């Protein structure tokens, strides 16, 4: 059953140096507060997994928490580059970063295989691309029924998946809606999971077919209203597009970024 913890305790108990850590939420419901808590607790040598690393991984990479990134599109959506990610890949600052890169469909299916308890997933993808050639977690597989050659992608099973959701009930069941990305698959694929939530409610209203993760599939829940800012939680907040645009200048320069890190992450207490 999910345990209700503070965010600080949930991260301290469940995220360890060297872990494979998935932080999911496709533009919507990105668990920023949890990412900042990982930075504050100075975790190191993490393998981060996210389809779209977004600002959250840019911040974790710039803070020196990651040694590897498994991803499928590493940009600042609609704005441009992730400069901390680029600095790590291009210049090895603050340390070098190994890459395991996929397409969205490929990485989503790696989570699907992990959630399904299968060793790999199958899709029609990667043929003829250098993405295929650059990556050891992609292979060809021949359909035993039709003979078609398809791509196999290795299952991914994170040590821990962290997501943000709109609601938990008092029994620890989790509900999220709107753009649901790959959250359900990434939690079910992981050994442990932390969910930060906007609100804890007595009972879920049953008027929509939203994703529900039963309490027994979740390790810890932390009540963190606004924990996905500057992304958003449908029904609770709007995406702060200005923040995403401001990140372009804020993240470009190492010193400016480190000043931001000091003031906005280290000097702030846990939520």
């Amino acid at each position, binding site marked *: 059953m999910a345990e209700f913890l503070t965010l600080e305790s949930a991260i301290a108990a469940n995220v360890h140096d060297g872990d494979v850590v998935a932080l999911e939420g*496709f*533009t*919507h419901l990105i668990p920023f507060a949890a990412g900042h808590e990982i930075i504050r607790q100075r975790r190191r040598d993490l393998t981060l997994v996210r*389809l779209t690393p977004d600002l959250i991984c840019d911040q974790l990479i710039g803070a020196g928490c990651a040694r590897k990134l498994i*991803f*499928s*599109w*590493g*940009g600042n*959506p*609609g*704005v*441009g*580059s*992730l400069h901390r*990610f*680029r600095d790590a*890949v*291009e210049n090895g600052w603050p340390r070098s970063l190994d890459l395991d*890169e*996929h*397409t*969205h*469909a490929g990485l*989503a*299916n790696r*989570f*699907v295989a992990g959630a399904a308890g299968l060793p790999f997933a199958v*899709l*029609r*993808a*990667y*043929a*003829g*691309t*250098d*993405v295929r050639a*650059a990556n050891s977690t992609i292979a060809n597989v021949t359909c035993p029924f039709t003979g*078609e*050659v*398809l791509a196999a992608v290795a299952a991914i099973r994170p040590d821990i998946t962290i997501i943000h959701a709109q609601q938990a009930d008092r029994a620890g069941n989790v509900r999220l809606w*709107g*753009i*649901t*990305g*790959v959250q*359900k*698959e990434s939690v079910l694929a992981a050994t442990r999971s932390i969910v930060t939530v906007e609100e804890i409610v007595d009972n879920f209203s049953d008027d929509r077919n939203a*994703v529900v993760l039963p309490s027994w599939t979740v390790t810890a829940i932390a009540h963190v209203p606004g924990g996905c800012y500057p992304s*958003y939680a*449908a029904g609770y907040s*709007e*995406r702060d*597009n200005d923040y*995403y*645009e401001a990140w372009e200048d804020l993240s470009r320069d190492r010193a400016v970024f480190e000043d931001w890190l000091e003031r906005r992450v280290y000097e702030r207490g846990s939520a």
Partner: protein
Amino acid sequence: MKRAFTTDEIMTIAASRELIGARSCFVGIGLPSIAANLARSLHSPGLVLVYESGTIGAKPTRLPLSIGDGELARTADIVVSVPEIFNYWLQPGRIDVGMLSGAQVDCFANLNTTVIGSYEHPKVRLPGAGGAPEIATACPRTIIVMRQSKRTFVAHLDFLTTVGFGVGAGSRASLGMPGAGPSVLISDLGMFRPDPETFEMILTSLHPGVSVVDVRNATGWDLKVSGELIETAEPTDEELDYVRRLNFGTSAEATN
């Protein structure tokens, strides 16, 4: 008097015209999103816009900054998960047209969105693949929109992220790619369509005021020109009004 227009405007308007008659379009952010939203506002009100965030039938009133903006979900007919959008909707070829962009394109309309320089030690690390490779595989046809220069229209890609026509005739079939591939490549200078025999992209239309020499000077390969070269129709007042109303300046090209 004719109204002035920018090269980005004619490129976007030309791309939106290519969506006339399409039922559905899988849309990337940046230039493709502008063109697809223009098409839906202007001449294809029933066009189903599909974003990789899982929003199907999105009807944004202003240009989204990201593919996951709240307005896309609020206005969509349905919202599905990321595995579902790729596995159930894109992969079987249910989405008619894919609209793509890139940092580099070659003469067979293959795209690079991954690195400039070597993969191991890139000069510029770009965002990577996203949804483009599967869009290019599965959609019955694709449209490519990107600004043209010798840096972007290159003889050899630094990295092949997304297959257009591979190495030419027969490539897509041998790679098991069901879609027909790029029907058109649209730049800020002109339009290029595949030669029916070789599948090399050849110049078929010049935007108003642009010469063949201009296009050659901005192309890194030995460009072939169609025997039936035409001029792209000038933007109508209505097209220009709509493209400007779409808040043209807000959405930077995601691949920078």
